[in-house]
């Protein structure tokens, strides 16, 4: 018996809400408010891009730390009435998923903060080439997978859709490089 679409949708929104709760959003909101006030007091002129970057970095980092806190306190949380309703004691999110989620959010916050330090022109360079590099790396892993699968007879005249899809992906990455190379390295 397959689960109904409605139950799947309910499960999905429940899961999203559990991850949202992991970040301790009310604490994040208070920290963002504090960061906003500090920014307004410290800055001589208001740069909207930098302000948004500060809020995004603060939200990501403090949300990630909230999730890590839920992971570290998972055993204690089960023993107290208020904290036993948190997503990990309730079984809505597994401890490993909470740990990965927390580390990922925290890491993203650190990356955005680092961009603020090095300035926007340089950070746009690193973000563009970094994302492109990540796609190239993913493509190399996919090529290895495709070669291994082809070597074991995984593709033949009637079944080559994966290779064709990879060709579209790789050619698009190629097109992006043809823009990035002259833009950042020649002009």
């Amino acid at each position: 018996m397959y689960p109904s679409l409605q139950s799947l949708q309910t499960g999905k929104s429940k899961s999203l809400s559990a991850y949202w709760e992991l970040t301790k959003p009310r604490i994040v909101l208070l920290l963002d408010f504090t960061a906003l006030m500090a920014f307004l007091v410290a800055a001589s002129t208001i740069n909207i891009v930098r302000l948004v970057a500060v809020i995004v970095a603060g939200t990501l980092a403090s949300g990630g730390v909230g999730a890590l806190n839920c992971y570290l306190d998972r055993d204690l949380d089960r023993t107290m009435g208020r904290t036993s309703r948190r997503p990990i004691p309730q079984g809505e999110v597994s401890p490993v998923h909470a740990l990965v989620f927390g580390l990922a959010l925290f890491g993203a916050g650190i990356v955005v903060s680092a961009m603020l330090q090095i300035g926007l022109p340089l950070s746009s360079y690193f973000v563009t080439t970094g994302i492109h590099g990540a796609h190239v790396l993913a493509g190399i892993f996919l090529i290895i997978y495709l070669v291994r699968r082809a070597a074991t007879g995984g593709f033949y005249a009637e079944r080559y859709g994966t290779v064709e899809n990879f060709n579209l992906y790789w050619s698009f990455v190629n097109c992006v490089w043809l823009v990035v190379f002259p833009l950042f390295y020649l002009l």
Partner: protein
Amino acid sequence: MNKTTPVAVWSYLVVATLLEWTLAKNFLSLTTIYTNIVIAVLAASQILSVAMVFLRLKYEPRGIVGLAAASLFFAVLAVVLALGSIGH
């Protein structure tokens, strides 16, 4: 697709990249815009050749090709405007 076509496109990409690099190294100057235009046109022709052959746009209906061209135009416009705004 003719088997020689991908090789021809790949060869063109190599030659055009070398040409772009030579132009940038020897003739690029902030006071003249012509070298920039030539490099931009070469890059656009490279993208066009990859899109037509490897992304199979050559075999798609004209409407799809027009849609892709319009998307590319707006994407380049967005990148140029974004770079211009954060550069100042």
